[in-house]
């Protein structure tokens, strides 16, 4: 193979010397573009543009079913609408500018008997194409920010508090129970049996429910206040179908409010896919198994959800007694540390 490559290179070098010689003899400077080059390349650019735009439209239509899976959250439906408006606006600009760019290059090919138009500026024109984009962008900014404010102004009292906790390379979910408050946790309390480092001496922890295993349940139509944390490195909790994403950062809480609108069963019908499941993916590089850090998400009708939750054990019941006691003492020292 190396020999073929070497021979090929030698042949090309020979051919190039020959073509150079020929051009020297014919008297024209072969390495400056000639009329033939201009017309060939400008035709090429036109073809490229037409075929490229056609392929782009074709692919967009062909892959439509896979792009932007159906939004299954309240804000998701709204941001999808916003996204489509944005695509429409940038699509128009894209087509106009690309067509003008390639068309002008084709149309105004070099002709040595012609001069270009000496046209260094035109203030009116420049003003127009500064002001028009400004207006369009202002509209996009305003609509975008309105949506942003709406989705980020959560209602902490209404939302059901759910903790999503990332660690290399899996997720744990904790439900806050009837008091809708998560018990305190501290990373130095983490152990095999207490993966979240929950401080059992905090009364708010008494009704907390933790689910491991590879499934997380959410009720449909109930506002949820997610609280995200991480144990080790930064992870990012990404729910593509809910259009929800938030980083999980060690040492701090991050939040996201959302409301699921379609149950898993309904979605199976919508996508005509019996095996459909919502998914929670890690979307911040977090280590060698980053690509495998996922969890199945099941959206239930509220009644189904309550039933499922009742079947899950409270954290406090699952904890070994020895740990409960030891935990109490550590926790009190922790508390003093914090107080200091």
């Amino acid at each position: 193979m190396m020999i073929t490559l070497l021979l090929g290179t030698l042949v090309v070098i020979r051919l190039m010397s020959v073509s150079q010689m020929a051009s020297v003899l014919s008297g024209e400077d072969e390495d400056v573009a000639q009329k033939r080059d201009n017309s060939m390349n400008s035709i090429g650019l036109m073809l490229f543009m037409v075929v490229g735009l056609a392929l782009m439209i074709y692919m967009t239509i062909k892959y439509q079913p896979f792009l932007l899976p159906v939004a299954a959250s309240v804000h998701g439906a709204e941001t999808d609408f916003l996204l489509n408006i944005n695509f429409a606006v940038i699509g128009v600009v894209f087509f106009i500018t690309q067509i003008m760019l390639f068309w002008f290059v084709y149309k105004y090919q070099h002709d040595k008997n012609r001069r270009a138009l000496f046209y260094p500026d035109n203030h009116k024109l420049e003003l127009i194409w500064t002001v028009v984009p400004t207006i369009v962008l202002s509209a996009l900014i305003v609509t975008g920010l309105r949506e942003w404010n709406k989705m980020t102004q959560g209602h902490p009292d209404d939302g059901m508090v759910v903790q999503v906790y990332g660690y290399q390379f899996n997720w744990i979910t904790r439900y806050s129970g009837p008091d809708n408050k998560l018990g305190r946790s501290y990373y130095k309390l983490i152990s095999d049996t207490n993966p979240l480092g929950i401080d059992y001496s905090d009364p708010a922890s008494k009704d907390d429910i933790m689910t491991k295993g590879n499934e997380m349940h959410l009720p449909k139509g109930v506002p949820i206040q997610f609280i995200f944390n991480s144990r080790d490195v930064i992870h990012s909790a990404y729910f593509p179908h809910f259009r929800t994403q938030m980083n999980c950062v060690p040492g701090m809480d991050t939040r996201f409010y959302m409301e699921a609108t379609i149950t898993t069963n309904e979605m199976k019908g919508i996508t005509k896919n019996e095996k459909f499941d919502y998914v929670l993916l890690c979307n911040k590089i977090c280590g060698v198994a980053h690509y495998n850090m996922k969890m199945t998400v099941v959206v239930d009708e509220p009644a189904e959800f309550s039933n499922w939750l009742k079947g899950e054990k409270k954290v406090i019941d699952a904890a070994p007694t020895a740990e409960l006691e030891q935990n109490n003492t550590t926790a009190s020292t922790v508390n003093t540390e914090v107080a200091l």
Partner: protein
Amino acid sequence: MEVRDNTHSGHAVAHDVHDHGHDDHHHDHHQTFITKYIFSTDHKMISKQFLVTAIIMAFLAMGMSMIFRLQLAWPDETFPFLESMIGKWGKDGKLDSGFYLALVTIHGTIMVFMVLTGGLSGTFSNLLIPLQVGARDMASGLLNMLSFWFFAASSLVMFGSLFIEAGPASGGWTVYPPLSALPQAIPGSGLGMTLWLVSMVLFIVSALLGGINYVATVINLRTKGMSMTRLPLTVWAFLITAILGILSFPVLVAAALLLVFDRSMGTSFYLSDIFIGGVPLDHTGGSPILYQHLFWFLGHPEVYIVLLPALGLASEVISTMARKPIFGYKAMIGSMLVIAFLSFIVWGHHMFVTGMNPFLGSVFVFTTLLVAIPSAVKVFNYIATLWKANIVLSPAMLFAIGLVSFFITGGLTGIILGDSALDINLHDTYFVVAHFHIVMGSSAIFGMFAGVYHWFPRMYGRMMNKSLGYLHFWITIICVYGVFFPMHFIGLAGVPRRYYANTAYEGFDQLININELISVFAIIAGVAQVIFAFNFFYSIYRGRKAPQNPWNSNTLEWTAPVEHVHGNWPGPIPEVHRWPYDYSKPNAKEDFIPQTVPYSQTPESNRPGDF
């Protein structure tokens, strides 16, 4: 004795010294191999050193991308050659998932810093600033030489980090802590990460030495008559780029330094409440988000450090080859200044999902979308320049047109990503990968190609082969769109970036054939660059001798002799009488009037506003 720039009398002394030095050299031209080719202080040689180093690094980084594209398209196949090539990382022909991340990381780092920052600014600022402003050399030849050698050292350290036992840094090119701070979290965060940091610090030293030099040269060493408003747009772009670098790179040093402290001295700037490897760490009170603020304070201006020189080169090439003045010269400068200013106050758009205060997020949405305005002005000005032009399609011109096309395509998707409400769903997906590879990667690399094809005659005194240039252009533009356009689709489907395999979620299975398509294009694009490399190195030795001014250009560099001389011009430095874009001026004898031609010699074409 020489006609020199007298407009800056304050620097007369410096000039005199410089001139004497020059005179000495002029009479006595014995240079050893080492002073001429290795420790050279001549800006033209240094520019070639930057370019060749960047080309080598680019091939390395491109090779890496080809390996991980194989993995992404054919996750179940084995490629036995991998084992012979990368040893234990490709055991049984299967790419190791940790090494995949290392490849992604080093690919990004090399491309962004070594190729598109060092390679682009280093090459063309060095070549063009002295030649286009009419200076004998850079303000400081010594600093300039050091700038290259720090760059070379940085590249070597980065390259060397590939060969260590635990593998190179692999936390992504942004190296966010805690991942990058804790070797327990990923093997690459051990010695590999240390070397990455060392390499970056060396790189920043290089960028700063270079940048200070570029600014000093543009401000102080312009020839007589070369006012700021007569500077070619290339020089304006290099000047603004250098200022951006000087203001933002030191912040990266700070970020890196604190990371070094956290890694080796037990401080807690970025670390808090971490339980890893079965034990809680003592670090407490730090914030990983602090690093991101510091990193992106450089990171976002960095995008423009990469892009502005490319736009500058394209402006010059487009105007020259369209035989038409650049439309809106002052608006072009103005928009570059506005972009540069805004680039410092938009960094938060990389951090919408870090839990930042939503109000702060809205401020960043606002500033980010403002960037689209000067960018739009630039695009419209390019298009207006082509309108009713007389276009010569040299390979450089084709690449410049490709740049504008990419700038539009990639810039527009930026409007979506800059909108926080929409970014939530697209953040860190392939949509982002598509966006920045088109707007920053491909645009900038096309600008660099345009620059190489256009100024090769000035660098090496020979012409590059035109036909190979066309072949290179066509394969490259088709493949670049073929690689990056479909990535928008994958991103919209919700596929995260930096995944070793997309098989984790069965919903992504339908996209596997898009991934195959992308990889095929990527491999063809990679092979096509061999055409360029061949053309480049062949033409250095065997290309046709270049004429004095092959593209009939107006700027000063084409008045310098084809055979390089120390000090650029053998006699006095030419004086400048007009702006650089007098192409196709009505009634002029030819369709270009070089900057050195006084108005008194062109009464037929002078216009009322000219004096």
